[in-house]
C-alpha cells in the first residue's frame, strides 16, 4: 500500500484515496462548438504511458479534495503531488 502525500493533509495511506484518471484535461468551455471528433477525443482519448504520468487523485476518505500527482506508472514512485493552481512540477530525470 502506497503512502500518498495529500497537498492539504500530508502523508496518508493509499486506501484513503481514489484515483481519478489523467490530469489537466479541461472540459471545453463551449462543448456545442466541438466537432464530434474533438468531443470524442475529450471524452475517451487518454495517455497510457509507461513512465511519468500526471494524474488526478482525490483524498476521498480524508479532506475530500482533488489534487494532481506526478507518478511513475512503472515504479509507482510519486515525484510530486500538487494543487490544481500550483505550477506543474518538472518530470524528474
Amino acid at each position: 500500500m502506497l503512502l500518498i502525500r495529500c497537498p492539504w493533509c500530508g502523508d496518508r495511506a493509499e486506501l484513503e484515496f481514489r484515483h481519478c484518471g489523467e490530469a489537466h484535461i479541461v472540459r471545453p468551455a463551449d462543448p456545442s462548438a466541438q466537432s464530434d471528433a474533438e468531443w470524442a477525443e475529450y471524452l475517451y482519448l487518454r495517455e497510457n504511458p509507461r513512465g511519468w504520468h500526471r494524474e488526478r487523485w482525490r483524498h476521498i476518505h480524508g479532506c475530500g479534495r482533488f489534487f494532481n500527482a506526478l507518478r511513475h506508472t512503472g515504479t509507482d514512485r510519486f515525484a510530486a503531488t500538487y494543487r490544481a493552481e500550483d505550477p506543474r512540477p518538472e518530470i524528474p530525470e
Partner: protein
Amino acid sequence: MSGRLPAGGRIDRTRPLRFTFDGRGYTGYAGDTLASALLANGVHLVGRSFKYHRPRGILSAGSEEPNALVEIDRGGGRREPNVRATMVPLVDGLVARSQNRWPSLRLDLASLAGLAAPLLPAGFYYKTFLGPGREAWHRRWEPLIRRMAGLGRAPDAPDPDRYANRYAHAEVLVIGAGPAGLDAAIAAAEQGGRVILCDEQAEMGGSLLADPAQWDRLAAMLATLRANPRVTLLPRTTAFHHGLQNFVSLAQVLDRPDGLRERLWQVRARRVVLATGAIERTIPFAGNDRPGVMLADAARTYAARYGVLPGRRVVASVAHDSGYDAAFTLQDAGETVAAILDLRADPARAAAAEARGITVLRGHGIVGTRGGLHVTGVRAAPLMEGGRPDPVRARDIACDLVLMAGGWTPTLHLLSQARGRLRWDEAADAFLPGDLPEGITCVGSCAGTEAGLPIRAIAAGAAPGAFIDHQNDVTAKDIALALREGFTSIEHVKRYTTNGMATDQGKTSNMLGLAVAAATLGRALPEVGLTTFRPPYTPVTFGTLAGRARGLDFEPIRRAPLHGWAEAQGAVFEPVGQWMRARYFPRAGEDMHAAVARECRAVRAAVGMLDASTLGKIEVTGPDAAEFLERTYVNAVHSLKPGRSRYALLLREDGFVFDDGIIARLAPDRFHVTTTTGGAARVLHMLEDYRQTEFPELRVWLTSTTEHWGVIALQGPRARDLLAPHVEGLDLSREAFPHMACGAARICGIPGLVFRASFTGELGFEVNVPAGHAPMVWERLWQDGQRLGVVAYGTEAMHVLRAEKGYVIVGQETDGTVTPDDLGYGWAIGKAKRDFVGKRSLARPDMQRTDRLQLVGLKPRDGRVPDEGAQLVVGEGPSQGHVTSAYDVAVLGLLRAGRSRMGETILATSLDGAPIPLEVVPPVFLDPKGERLHG
C-alpha cells in the same frame, strides 16, 4: 534406521510430548518440529506425491519443504490441510495425518499411476482440453484425476479461531534472524530507532541453531535484543509480501490458548534489511525423491539442532563444499558415512574427509536409488562426458540416508516482489541483488554465497526421470519435452510443465528447472530468464488475510431509522448496497407473492407507508447553487421556484443516464437533491469533481444529508387524509400543495420537510424529519393510519408499483448505455439550456439514431410473465433487446426502435419452456393521464 541421539540438540528432554500420525502414537520433545519428531521415531514416509502418488519423505528442515505436507487436526473444526511438517512446532496431543493416499500411506493403489507416468506428461491438461481428447476428458480423465490428484482435504466447518491484524512502523525491519539478521538488528538497535526482527522459525538463530559451537553467541545476541525496549522480536512470523515503499506484510502464528490463531502485521519501515538466507539445491539423479533422500544441510540440522539421526549409514551426493560439513556432523553424531560422491573432479575438502576415514569418490554421481518406501542404497558411478553418471560402471552402495548438497540459491523472493532487480552472477553461480530499491539492504547469504559446481553443469547431468519439482511431480524429462514442443520462454515452460507452481513456489525447483532448460537449449542461464516471484512467499491462511472482517464484520451494515420497527413487524429484509431494507411484511400464512400483492392493493386503495430513508440526499447551498445544478443536471433549475421540485436526471459526460432523483428548491440559495439509494456516494463524488475542478469559480457547497433525515413515504389516495392532521405550518391541500411542491413544516411537532412526491403513481408525500425522530413520527402516523387501513410496504411492492406506472430504476432499466430519450424521458431535459453535463454527447450521431433500444411496456399474450433479463427476439434473428422489469401487473423492456413498434408481438426467451409472446405497449400501465398522481 534412525532415531534420537542420547544427548545434544536444543530440544527439552524433560518435556516429552505425545502426538499421533495416521492414528499411531509417538513421542517427541518440546523444541521438536513434527518433522524432527517423526524422524526421531523412524518415520520417513509421510506423504504421497501430487500426480504419481510416489512415496515421499522429509526433504528439508524449513519452509521450502515440498514433500512433507500433512493434515493437522486440532479438533472442533480446526482441520488444516497441506501444512509443512517441518514448520509445525510439536505440541502435546498433536494429531497429524498423511494426505493424498488410499487406502493407506504404505499401500496406495493410485501409486500404480507411477508405473503409468507416461500418461501424464508435461502439458497433459492443455493437450487434453484442446485436442480431440476433449470428449475423453469428461468421460475418463476428469473423474479419474479428481479421485487421484490434489493435496489435502479442505476443512468442512467454519474456522472457529480468531485472527487479528496490526499496523506497525519501524526505522528498520530485519527479515530473517540468522547470524546476518541478528547482527543487523543489533546494529540498527544501537542507532536508537524502532527495530522489528522477524523470522519464520519458532526459534530465532537460523543457521546458528545447527551449530552448537555458536549457541553461546546466539544466546548473547538474543539477550542484547530482548533487553532493548525498542526492539520487537517476532518468531514464527513470515514476511510474505514486500510491497513498494517498504510496506511489508507479516503473518505471525500465535496459536494462543484463547483461540487467537494468527496475526497479520502490516509494517511500514524506513529501511528493510533482507537477511533471508539461502536454500540448498537438490541434485537431479533418478530416484531423488525416495524417502530417505534429503538435503544435506537439513540432515545436519536434524542432528545438531534436534538431536535426531535421520539415518545410520549415509551416502552424500555433493557438488558444494557445504556437503562435507553435513557429512562430518553426521559422522560426529555417530552415523556411518559410506561414501561422499563428489560431482567435482578435484574437491578441496576431499582430503579432510579422507583424513576422517570417509571414502570420497571424485567425479562420481548417482545413477539411481534402490528401495521401496525407503532408500536402501544407491548406484554410484563415475561421470561420463557431459556430466551423467555411467550406468555401465555403476556399483551399489548400501545406505539408509542419501544427502544432496547441490549448492545454494540466495532467497530473494521479497526483493523481487519489491521490484528490486536480480542479476546473474557467474562467479557466485546465482542470481544476486542487482539494483536495490531505496531503503532495502541485503545481508548474509541472500546477498551471495560461495559457489560450488555450477548449477548448469549439475543440470547437464540430470537423469530424465529425476525430480526437479518434487511437489508438482515435474521431472527433467518434462522440461525437455516442453522445450522440444517449442516452449522456450522460461515463463511458458513453467506454465506448461507446472514447474515451480506448487504451494512451495518452487523454492527447491525453480533454479534447477531453469538450469535444465538452459543446459538443454545450450544457452546461458540469464538468457533463458528468471520467472517472476509473486507473493505470498509461503502459503498464508485466508483467516490471517481476512482478520476480523468476516461474517457480520465483513462490511458495515447500514440500518435505516425504522429498521427496528420493521424488524418487530416481522419484515423480511434484503441488502441494497450496504443498506438492509425491508422487502415485504408478511402476515401469518403469507408468502412473498401474497404479501406483496396485499401491500400493493392497499396502496392503490387506501394508503401505504414506506421507509424511504435510504435515499441519498445532498444539500446544495450557496449563491451559485442554482447555477451549479443547472450545469450538472439535465433540468432547468434557474426557473424552479422555491417551494417546488423537479424529477432530476444526471448524465455522465458521455450522455448516458448516471442517476436520478428530485431537485427541490427550499430557498433561492438552498436545494435538497435526492439520489438513488445505491448512487449516493458516486453522485456526490461526481458533483464534487465538477465543483472543485471544472467550476471552481462557483460559490456552492455540497453536504451529504443522507443519514440526517429519516424519510417516511406516504402513498395512496388517503395519504393526505393520514398526514394532514399531523402537519403544522403547511397547507397540504390539493390547490396549495400540488404534485412536486415542497416546504418546511412541523410534523408531529418535529421540524422537518414535506415533499409532494410519488414513486407509485398515487397521491404521495415524503416526510423528512431528523433521523432520531423518525421512529416516533412513524409510530404516530401508523397508529392513526389504522382508521384508514394503512399498510407498511417494502421494497418489493415499491418496485411493482413504480413499474406499473412506468417509472424507471437507474441500474435496472438502465445499464450505462441508456440516454434520457431511450427511456422516453426527454421531457426532463431543459430545452433552452446551452450546456449541461452530457448534453454535447446527446448530439452525437449515434445518439440520434431511431433504432436505439427504447423503453417499452410488454404485455404477456399467454399469461406467462417473462424473466428479468430475458432476451427479446423475433424468429431466429438476433436479440432485439431485453426484459428489464417483470411483474404480474407490468413488464418493462428495452426494445430496438421500441416506440415505433406498438402493437407488434415479440418473443421473450425462456429458460424453461417455449418463448413467451409479448405485445409491445406503452410503458405506463396505470393512470396514463396522471389523475391519481395529481389527486
